[in-house]
């Protein structure tokens, strides 16, 4: 059977775009190996000093641990909220579903900077009441991140629910299962993959969140992106290049593993 394939001109243009997309990611590799204290190309010898400074400078480690803590808490909160909401939508198909889902997706479509101002307002208001849960606290950041990630988690879980066969649930219902049993023993095991993906995506989004974080932290809750931002704005520190290389390698590995897994799943 003949197929319509891109011609040589299309391929050439696509290669140019691919280079444009990959170039800045490759560019950080030589910079990370420079022996200089400034952001320059290495001339002659290479050095791992900037990788060493990531381990030796306690600020990096502290930020990494803080980002992990915030990511885990905010991802757990988003996933639980998104899961219960989506189960409600799918099992009961209430009226106004479209409007309610639209409302939940707002933080995803509103310009991030406006969400940032909004969450800044929220956390500074809370700061007046409580000192460990508000502006520039890790719990405040975790909550703000949940607001930003919960629409993505909801979309993923709703999509995996939409692929589920309703007759499974009808059968369980007909056999007398309660709402709780239907949700936990019939529906949830069937959308496991979607739930795990939603949790992972929420974690990743929180882990790299910077737009909102900049507005709601100042000196205490310095997440990893916030620390990178400080290093980028003031005096560019090549340790950021070393960190970037590590993050890029992790991303490529995770994507490779994921594509192997999805290929196996679809192969079955």
């Amino acid at each position, binding site marked *: 059977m003949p197929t319509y394939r891109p011609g040589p001109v299309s391929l050439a243009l696509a290669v140019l775009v691919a280079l444009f997309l990959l170039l*800045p990611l490759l560019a950080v590799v030589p910079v990370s190996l420079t022996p200089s204290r*400034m952001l320059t190309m290495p001339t002659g010898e290479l050095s791992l000093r900037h990788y060493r400074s990531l381990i030796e400078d306690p600020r990096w480690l502290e930020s990494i641990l803080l980002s992990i803590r915030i990511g885990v808490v905010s991802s757990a909160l988003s996933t639980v909220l998104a899961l219960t909401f989506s189960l409600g939508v799918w099992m009961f198909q209430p009226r106004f579903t479209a409007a309610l889902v639209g409302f939940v997706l707002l933080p995803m479509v509103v310009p991030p900077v406006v969400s940032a101002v909004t969450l800044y307002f929220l956390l500074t208001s809370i700061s007046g009441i409580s000192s460990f849960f508000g502006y520039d606290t890790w719990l405040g950041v975790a909550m703000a991140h949940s607001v930003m990630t919960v629409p993505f988690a909801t979309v993923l879980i709703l999509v995996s629910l939409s692929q589920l066969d309703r007759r499974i649930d009808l059968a369980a219902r007909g056999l007398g299962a309660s709402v709780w049993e239907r949700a936990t023993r019939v529906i949830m095991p069937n959308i496991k993959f979607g739930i795990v993906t939603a949790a992972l995506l929420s974690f990743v989004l929180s882990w790299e969140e910077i737009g909102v974080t900049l507005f709601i932290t100042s000196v205490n809750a310095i997440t990893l992106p916030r620390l990178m931002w400080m290093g980028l704005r003031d005096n560019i520190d090549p340790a950021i290049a070393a960190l970037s290389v590590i993050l890029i390698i992790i991303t490529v590995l995770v994507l490779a593993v994921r594509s192997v897994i999805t290929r196996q799943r679809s192969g079955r």
Partner: protein
Amino acid sequence: MRGTLSDRMGAALLMAPLLLFLVLAYAWPFLGVVKWSFTLPTPGLGQYHALLTDDLVQSVFIRTLRIAAIVTVVSVTAAYAITVVWVRGSPVQRVLAEFCILVPFWISVLTRAFGWVALLSNRGLINTWLQSIGFISEPLTLVRNEFGVIVGMSHFLIPFAVFPLASAMRSLDERVLLAARGLGSSRMRTFWTVFVPMTRSGIIGSAMITFVFSLGFFVTPAILGGGRSVMIAELIYLRIFQSPDWGLGAAISVVLVVFVGALMALLFRYVKPKQLV
């Protein structure tokens, strides 16, 4: 069907936590921001009047619209080129194109902006290389200006522009393309008169997403613009944290939301949300 009353209760119980969370942590504080825009520093429409008359604010709005328009054209064109191969290429080409789209997509905006700094700055890769081959004697200024901002933002937005295009190209009936080729139409002509018009909804969706995203962009312009080509989002940040003028920052935010809302409404008149994914 059993008891609709318990059904309604169940739905309410399951959906309440998230709705309550977002009302308290998002809708309510947003109304607070709206209130700021009308009450700070003095009650009234003063801040909105300032928006219309302040030269700095006006020039930032115009620059933002201009950069967003250029970035949209660049990103959609580039995304189109790579999506054609991702959707219609041979299996190997598809895997490679997917890799080039998804790897940058998953890498944080900071790392990507930093990569451009490493490439474009005065002592960056491009200037070092051009000087070493003797092509230029003084480094070219490629960052801390609009050029750097446009390059960095386009790089960020290309993967987002790809998805609506890919969905349009996947739903396109291949037999129409083969028929055009079979009837003697050249590759170029088939592409421009059959392929492109049939992916129109994807192009509109992709352009709208890119444009809307560019309007509220903060990180990339702040890093690659180096404070010299300030866009709306950075202006909001500066008004709230540097020259504390919360009222003006809040008013710009409100105008931005209204503007983006109007654009989205326009978008959904032409494209169904399902076609965007």
